[in-house]
């Protein structure tokens, strides 16, 4: 059993206690503990269950590479699954529960899987569950899904109470990793005057060196680290950041870092996470190295840990892994663990070294402490069900015949180290195989390249393969020098020298013992979380999943939450061996961001609630809000759909608004309509290219409705153009069209007709625009007074005028989208709200009624006016809509004209716009199709038209619709059958609705009402 020692623990504050809970048990730890160290200190050996076989698992690592110790953290809205205990700082009141087990961690029914893993090899699901067919959906898949996942999902009835934010930074250098390599790099770059951001993912500086007893410039590493920090803190150009993980490196020096601002606090009054979005000219990856496990049978049992992690728990947190620990290794570094354990007063029954000799300074020191060193040996088996109780030793060279049993509670394993090359690789940096160290390290010749085609990442220290302390600082110095040189800077000052006892070469060991048979190989874990074993990788190779990417996907090796940090290299080596190919030829899988998982909350940043998306507001929006508007989003605008009054349904409200407008006067906030000024000597010529109509002939003072097509011929926008003066047009666009059309204009002006004298300005938001509509519209405006003559004679239909209405600066357009007498009045936005209020006042005696977009839509449909987005859908040309009158025959060219000459566009069989009226007065269903005889080549029912808009008309008291119909205009009076979907989904014959083809103008066909 693991426990807290009476002394030691450089990171904990023993003077204070912290209470926390695990699976409901009340436990205590100290400030400085991680959840993992605190659990171990409390003797909690099993901390989780594996994914596939539900095997009991203990802590194996001490950092980001941990695959086992994942917990559900927090409660209610703060519940977070899959939190890594090794990187979770303990805080008062922390509550965690174990995952992937039922009913309890110690007794898990799912563990039955572990008894039959033989029947569940890699990819077993591809080979079975095939018959009978419906069983997959109804039996097999639910079974698999039931055992899926790790952590518990958050409760949908709760919401995350925390806030998140982004932070943009531009800097010369980002340094990832605050070990001695990262600190050295920061010192050098700082002294050279570069702008530096140094990020360390944990809560403390210095990395491994203090744990490993490294000396720098003759003193313990900690002294140098403290001095380095002091110097760095004094530099204006250097920023230091703890709890900040560099998550990804992207093209052109874009770097994402993930700051856990408040994860170590119970209920923070601060953003929980801050996502740093950094532009760095250069990146220094001083991310260290990961220790590799060894693949021996039973290497996944609770109590088997990485040697370096065990050392971390002893030195950093004063935690003993157990009274007796066997160390198994293929290198000298792991002897440090044996020595540390022994020095802590605990027993190391033996060191099992797969190499034939071990006589460097560290092995000698271990022997001197009385620890037996067994060379050429291996572990044949780990005994114990819920954790280690003994190991059985054998010869590494053999097949696993047991030579002796060694009683122990813990095993420290080390298979060597692999540089953390993730950040180097994210953006395309290539790797080289280092045969001596048996690892991949950055190939300096092939760095990831930036916008200038030059490398922009360097690796420093252990991350570059400089594993031994004596090489680390020199390597970091040189790497930083390369990065600085690319910045045109050079590094003054001295690089410190670190020292540690020499280490002999490791001997690569990918399987232990090397001759293990299939039974043993099926118990050697590679990917701990996903339960991928040596036998699985070998199976993949045997079945032809030879590419490392196939093996990964077939076995799920490296796809767990640690992303293969623990043992991908072991897996590759096993694959290479199975294929008889050299390791570098097999290569690695792709390194993808993030380095360790980051919260979705942080990615979304502040964008939730009120600032999820901008809501564009008109100057009159407040009034709409206060008067109970139902909303219709249009782009980022949010327009009133209607204004339901007490007890009214939306439909009631729409009908009321329409009738009030048609009989007296209504009011529409039309401020969202696009308004673009087009001015210059060539403005007329430009307008003629933009619109299908002839616009250059429009007279100042007059308005004209126009159509705009894309160069591909399709209708893209419509609206009224007013000519302000000889040189100036005011273009009205649809609400959604303003920015798009303005950009479209600028595109043509800047990129095609750049010699034309035309300027545009988008003045949409300068104006509040209100449509005053209905037979009493003129009376209301006249009541306000002012200096504009609003009479029919002075201001006829399709004219505009400028002046004052009441006290307001106004432009009045005599245009109508409803068929009624209508004035669209634009006033400066700042006066918009006051103007609206004044209209309501003046109109009170006429029962003036604000209306929303739905009333607008119904009224325009009653008049047979098309609506962009309803009658058009990106496939419709003006000719389809009977708008030929708006297509100038006199112009040689306009945008879309050439496209409209293509075969399909001139096809007489194109569907054309008509009105539709059901025989029974009902409303046609939205989007219904007119059925035709027979089926097409693909057995789909033939059709001959479709509904484009359909409404209940309160004016006419019946359903009205528009649609596109084959030869429609020539078939007036014919009755079509439209489909419904009511029963179709159930496969039954759906009823159809009969409707007659009529003129699309249902109301006031002569246009008498608008022209008064």
């Amino acid at each position, binding site marked *: 059993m693991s426990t807290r020692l009476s002394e030691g623990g450089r990171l904990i504050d023993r003077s204070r206690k912290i209470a926390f809970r695990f699976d409901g048990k009340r436990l205590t730890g100290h400030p400085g503990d991680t959840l993992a160290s605190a659990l171990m200190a409390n003797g909690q050996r099993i901390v989780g269950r594996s994914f596939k076989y539900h095997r009991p698992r203990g802590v194996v690592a001490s950092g980001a590479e941990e695959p086992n110790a994942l917990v559900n953290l927090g409660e209610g809205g703060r519940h977070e699954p899959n939190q890594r205990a090794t990187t979770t700082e303990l805080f008062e009141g922390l509550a965690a529960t174990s995952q992937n087990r039922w009913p309890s961690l110690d007794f898990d029914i799912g563990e039955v899987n572990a008894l039959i893993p033989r029947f569940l090899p890699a990819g077993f699901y591809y080979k079975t569950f095939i018959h009978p067919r419906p069983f997959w959906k109804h039996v097999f898949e639910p079974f698999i899904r039931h055992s899926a996942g790790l952590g518990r999902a958050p409760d949908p009835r709760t919401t995350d109470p925390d806030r998140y934010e982004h932070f943009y930074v531009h800097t010369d250098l980002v340094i990832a990793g605050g070990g001695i390599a990262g600190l050295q790099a920061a010192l050098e770059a700082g002294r050279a005057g570069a702008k530096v951001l140094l990020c360390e993912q944990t809560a403390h500086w210095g990395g491994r060196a203090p744990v490993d007893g490294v000396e720098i410039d003759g003193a313990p590493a900690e002294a140098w680290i403290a001095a380095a920090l002091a110097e760095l803190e004094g530099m204006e150009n250097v920023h230091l950041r703890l709890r900040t993980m560099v998550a990804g490196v992207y093209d052109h020096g874009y770097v994402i870092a993930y700051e856990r601002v408040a994860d170590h606090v119970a209920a923070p009054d601060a953003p929980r996470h801050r996502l740093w979005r950094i532009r760095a000219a250069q990146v220094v990856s001083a991310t260290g190295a990961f220790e590799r496990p060894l693949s021996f049978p039973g290497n996944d049992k609770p109590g088997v840990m990485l040697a370096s992690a065990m050392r971390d728990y002893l030195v950093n947190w004063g935690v003993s892994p157990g009274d007796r620990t066997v160390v198994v290794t293929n290198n000298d570094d792991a002897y440090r663990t044996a020595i540390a354990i022994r020095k802590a007063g605990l027993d190391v029954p033996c060191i099992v070294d797969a190499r034939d000799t071990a006589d460097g300074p560290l092995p000698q020191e271990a022997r001197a402490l009385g620890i037996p060193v067994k060379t050429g040996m291996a572990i044949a088996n780990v005994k114990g069900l819920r954790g280690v109780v003994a190991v059985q030793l054998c010869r590494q060279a053999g097949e696993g015949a047991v030579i002796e049993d060694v009683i122990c509670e813990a095993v420290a394993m080390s298979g060597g180290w692999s540089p953390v090359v993730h950040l180097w690789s994210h953006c395309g940096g290539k790797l080289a195989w280092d045969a001596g160290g048996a690892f991949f390290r950055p190939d300096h010749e092939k760095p990831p*390249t930036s916008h200038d085609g030059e490398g922009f990442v360097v690796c420093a220290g252990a991350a570059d393969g400089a594993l031994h302390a004596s090489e680390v600082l020199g390597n970091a110095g040189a790497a930083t020098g390369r990065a600085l040189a690319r910045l045109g800077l050079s590094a003054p000052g001295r690089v410190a020298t670190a020292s540690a006892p020499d280490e002999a070469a490791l001997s690569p060991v990918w399987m232990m013992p090397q001759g293990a048979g299939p039974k043993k190989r099926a118990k050697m874990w590679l990917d701990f979380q996903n339960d991928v074993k040596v036998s699985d990788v070998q199976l993949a190779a045997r079945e032809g999943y030879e590419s490392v990417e196939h093996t990964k996907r077939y076995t799920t090796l490296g796809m767990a939450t640690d992303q293969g940090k623990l043992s991908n290299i072991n897996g590759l080596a096993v694959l290479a061996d199975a294929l008889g190919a050299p390791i570098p030829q097999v290569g690695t899988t792709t390194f993808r961001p993030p380095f360790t998982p980051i919260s979705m909350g942080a990615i979304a940043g502040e964008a939730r609630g009120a600032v999820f998306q901008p809501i564009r507001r008109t100057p009159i929006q407040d009034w709409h809000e206060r008067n109970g508007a139902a909303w219709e989003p249009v782009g980022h605008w949010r327009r009133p759909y209607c204004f339901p009054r007490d007890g009214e349904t939306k439909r009631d409200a729409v009908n009321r608004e329409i009738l009030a407008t048609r009989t007296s006067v209504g009011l529409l906030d039309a401020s969202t309509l696009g308004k673009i000024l087009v001015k210059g000597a060539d403005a007329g010529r430009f307008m003629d290219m933009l619109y299908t109509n002839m616009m250059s002939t429009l007279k100042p003072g007059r308005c004209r409705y126009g159509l705009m097509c894309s160069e591909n011929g399709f209708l893209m926008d419509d609206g009224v153009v007013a000519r302000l003066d000889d040189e100036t047009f005011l273009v009205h666009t649809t609400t959604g069209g303003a920015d798009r059309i303005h950009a479209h204009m600028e595109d043509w002006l800047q990129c095609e007709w750049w010699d034309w004298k035309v300027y545009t300005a988008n003045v949409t938001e300068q104006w509040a625009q209100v449509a005053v509509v209905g037979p009493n519209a003129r009376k209301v405006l006249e009541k306000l007074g002012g200096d504009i003559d609003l009479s029919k004679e002075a201001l006829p239909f399709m004219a505009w005028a400028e002046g004052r209405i009441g006290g307001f600066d106004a432009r009045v357009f005599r245009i109508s989208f409803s068929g009624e007498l209508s004035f669209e009045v634009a006033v400066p936005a700042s006066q918009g709200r006051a103007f609206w209020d004044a209209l309501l006042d003046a109109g009170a005696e006429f029962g003036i009624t604000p209306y929303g977009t739905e009333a607008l839509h119904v009224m325009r449909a009653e008049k047979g006016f098309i609506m962009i987005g309803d009658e058009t859908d990106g496939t419709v040309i003006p000719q389809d809509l009977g708008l030929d009158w708006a297509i100038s025959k006199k112009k040689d060219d306009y945008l879309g004209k050439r496209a409209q000459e293509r075969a399909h566009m001139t096809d007489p069989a194109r569907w054309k716009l008509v009105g539709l009226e059901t025989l029974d007065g009902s409303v046609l269903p939205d989007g219904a199709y007119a059925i035709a005889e027979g089926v097409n080549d693909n057995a789909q029912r033939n059709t001959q038209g479709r509904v484009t808009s359909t409404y209940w008309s309160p004016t006419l008291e019946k359903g009205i619709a528009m649609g596109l119909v084959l030869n429609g205009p020539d078939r007036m009076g014919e009755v079509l059958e439209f489909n419904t979907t009511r029963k179709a989904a159930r496969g039954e014959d759906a009823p159809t609705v009969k409707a007659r083809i009529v003129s699309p103008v249902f109301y006031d066909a002569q246009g008498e009402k608008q022209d008064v």
Partner: protein
Amino acid sequence: MLTLTCPYCGVAACETELSPGGEAHLKRFGPGSSDDDFEAYLFLRPNVKGVHFERWRHAMGCGKWFLAARDTATLEVFGTYSAQTTEPPPGIVEAIRAKRPDWSPT
């Protein structure tokens, strides 16, 4: 995440301040042009894996369109330049040649 320098503002703009606009230096074909020419103008693209000339708009900035020469396989940028030109200017061609000696304009 590209950075492109707007030739008008001189600002090294983040991709999120820009909007992309497809291939540059297209020649417009209008009424009277052949079906072949018109189809090629609207749709057919070399879509090269390598040096690409393209349009960008400094949308969250000066609002101007500009052109860029960029390698689509490495994202290296050889330069940005005015949109008011029908072919890559000599300076850009030189910059590309310096890095891609085998490259020739198509």
